[in-house]
C-alpha cells in the first residue's frame, strides 16, 4: 500500500486515466486548472488524446463525438463552464452516450468567484439542461474518494449508457491529501459497445440520435430513459453515516461540507450532544428512504451546505414533518469552520 500526496484535481485526472479514459476535452477555468494541466501532460504520454477546445460547448460536443466512437471520455470544468456544457449533456442523455463530466464548483451565479461553493446542486441533480433526463451525480468528500468515484462514474456511465457527473468544489480540487490510487482497470472489463460508430462493415449502419420527431417514438425513447433511471435509483444509492445509531440530531451534508460536518459531529459528541451525520455520496439518486427512516428517530435534521439551501429541498422531501428541518448555509465561496456549524448544532440541540 503506497500513499502519495496529491491534489484533488490531479487525483481525479490520474484516476480517470486509470479508468481507461482515452479522450479528454477541456477549456481552462479555475479552480480546476491542475486537472487540465495533468491531463495535458499525462494523457498523450499514455496513449490517449488531449485537446483544449475553443469553448466548453465545443469540449462537451467533442466528448459526444468521442463517446459515439466508442471510447471512454471525459471533460471537466467549473460552474460557469458547466452551464455552457448543459446543451451537450442533454444531448448525451438523449442519445444514450456514456461520458464523465467533472464539476469543481465555485461561487456563483454569473462569473461569481473562484472560491469553493455548492450552488450547482440543482443544476446537477434536477436536470440543468432541457428535457426529462437525469445525471448520475457522485459527490466525493476527500481526495481518496474523488479518485475512487471518478472510476465509479465511468463504470456506471457505461453500465447504464448515461452521462455521469463528479460534483466536487474548489476546496476538494485544490487540497492535497494522501491517496492510495486504485489500480488501472483492465480494458477488457469495459462493457462492449455494439452501438458505437466504428464503420458499418458486416452489419447494418449504427446511428446515434437524440431525437425522434414522432411523438409516440419520442415517448418510447423517454420511457426507456425513465426505466434506466428507475433501475439506477434502485441499485446505485450510496451514502455514508457517522454516529447515526443513537443520534438525536442529524446533520445532512455532502462533499466539502460533509467532511466539515464530520469534525462537527466529533466536537458535538465531546460536548455531550448526540449528533450524527448522513453524507449522501450519490446526490442523484438521492437517499430519501434512509433519511426518512432516520428522521423517525431524531428531533432535528439539520442540512448544511455551501449554498442557500438546494439539497435542503430533497432533505425536506425525505423528512416531511417527522422532525424539524433547519438549514445552515454559507454563500459566495465563504467556507465555514467547524465551530460555525457547531454553534448552529448547539442552538438546535439546546432548543
Amino acid at each position, binding site marked *: 500500500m503506497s500513499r502519495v500526496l496529491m491534489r484533488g484535481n490531479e487525483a481525479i485526472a490520474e484516476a480517470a486515466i486509470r479508468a481507461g479514459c482515452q479522450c479528454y476535452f477541456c477549456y481552462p477555468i479555475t479552480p480546476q486548472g491542475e486537472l487540465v494541466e495533468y491531463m495535458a501532460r499525462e494523457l498523450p504520454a499514455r496513449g490517449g488524446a488531449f485537446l483544449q477546445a475553443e469553448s466548453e*460547448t465545443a469540449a462537451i*460536443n*467533442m466528448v*459526444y*463525438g468521442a463517446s459515439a*466512437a466508442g*471510447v471512454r471520455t471525459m471533460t471537466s470544468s467549473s460552474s460557469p463552464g458547466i452551464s455552457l456544457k448543459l446543451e451537450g449533456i442533454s444531448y448525451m442523455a438523449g442519445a444514450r452516450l456514456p461520458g464523465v463530466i467533472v464539476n469543481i464548483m465555485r461561487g456563483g451565479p454569473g462569473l461569481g468567484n473562484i472560491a469553493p461553493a455548492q450552488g450547482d446542486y440543482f443544476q446537477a441533480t434536477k436536470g440543468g439542461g432541457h428535457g426529462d433526463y437525469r445525471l448520475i451525480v457522485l459527490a466525493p468528500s476527500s481526495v481518496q474518494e474523488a479518485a475512487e468515484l471518478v472510476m465509479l462514474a465511468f463504470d456506471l456511465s457505461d453500465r447504464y449508457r448515461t452521462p455521469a457527473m463528479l460534483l466536487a468544489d474548489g476546496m476538494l480540487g485544490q487540497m492535497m491529501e494522501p491517496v492510495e490510487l486504485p489500480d488501472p482497470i483492465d480494458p477488457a472489463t469495459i462493457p462492449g459497445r455494439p452501438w458505437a*460508430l466504428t464503420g458499418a462493415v458486416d452489419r447494418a*449502419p449504427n*446511428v446515434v440520435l437524440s431525437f425522434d420527431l414522432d411523438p409516440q417514438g419520442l415517448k418510447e425513447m423517454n420511457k426507456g430513459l425513465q426505466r434506466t433511471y428507475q433501475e439506477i435509483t434502485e441499485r446505485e444509492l450510496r451514502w455514508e453515516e457517522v454516529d447515526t445509531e443513537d443520534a438525536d440530531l442529524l446533520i445532512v451534508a455532502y462533499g466539502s461540507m460533509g467532511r466539515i460536518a464530520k469534525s462537527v459531529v466529533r466536537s458535538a459528541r465531546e460536548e455531550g450532544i448526540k449528533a450524527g451525520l448522513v453524507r449522501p455520496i450519490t446526490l442523484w439518486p438521492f437517499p430519501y428512504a434512509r433519511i426518512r427512516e432516520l428522521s423517525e428517530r431524531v428531533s432535528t435534521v439539520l442540512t448544511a451546505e455551501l449554498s442557500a439551501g438546494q439539497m435542503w429541498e430533497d432533505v425536506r422531501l425525505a423528512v416531511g414533518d417527522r422532525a424539524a428541518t433547519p438549514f445552515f448555509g454559507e454563500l459566495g465561496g465563504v467556507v465555514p469552520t467547524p465551530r460555525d456549524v457547531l454553534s448552529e448544532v448547539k442552538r438546535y440541540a439546546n432548543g
Partner: protein
Amino acid sequence: MPMVETRIPEGYTKVFTRPEALSDAQYTYCPGCHHGVITRLVAEALDELGIRGRTVGIAPVGCAVFLYRFFNCDFVQAAHGRACAVATGLKRANPDLVVFSYQGDGDLGAIGTAETVHAANRGENITVIFINNQIYGMTGGEMAPTTLPGQRTVTSPGGRDTRLMGYPLKVSEMLAQLDGPCYITRQSVHDARHVGLTRKAIVQAFRNQLEGKGFSLVEVLAACPTNFKMSPEQGNTWVVEKAMKAFPLGDLKGA
C-alpha cells in the same frame, strides 16, 4: 416506402444507379431543393473511394437532419452548429474513421461559427460539406448569415438591411485565410457541368482526409425554392444571377 423495381430491357446497359452508400430511404427534401443532388454526390464519393465501411457522417440540425436515413453508413446527429466539434471527438477517438459533416449555412455559419473556425484552424483531419442556400429552410425561411443584401425572408421582411443586419458572411473566404485548412472550395449544382465539378471537389475533400492532409471544406451554393417562393427553375436562375455574384465559385485554398 417500397422501391420502384426496374427491369433493364435486353440490349441496354445500366449506366446510372443508386450508389451503394445510399440507403433505400426516400429523400424528405422539397422538390427543386439542391440538397438531393449534393447528398447523392457525397454518396458517390464514398463509393468511388471505397470508404463506406469506415465512414461516419454527422447530420446537422436543419433540412438535412434526416441525412442518417439516406446513407448506408454509420451516422450521428449533432446539436445545432456543433458538428465540427463532434467530428473532432470522433476523429481523435478513432483516427481510422473517415468523418464528414454536412451542414447548412445557419448551422455552420451562425450558431456553429466558433466550432467551424477552430476545427479548420486546427487542421482537423475531417471533411465538411457546407450547403449555402442563404436561408433557414426547415424552420420556415428565416434570414441566414449568408442571406444576400436586400433579400426578403420572414425575419427580414423588408429585405436584408445591411445597416441593421450586416452582410452575407463569407465563410469560405474567412477560412481560406487560416493556416489550418488544406482545401477550401466553393461549388454549385445548378447545371450538369457544375454538378460534375462539385462531385470532383467532394471526392478531393475525402481524398485529402485519407491522405491525412487535414481540414477540407466544400461549400455548395444551393437554392431553396420552397422558401424563396420560386419554381425549381427559378431557383437555379437565382443561384446563377444572385448567389454566385455574392459568392463567386472556385477554389479558395488548395486544390
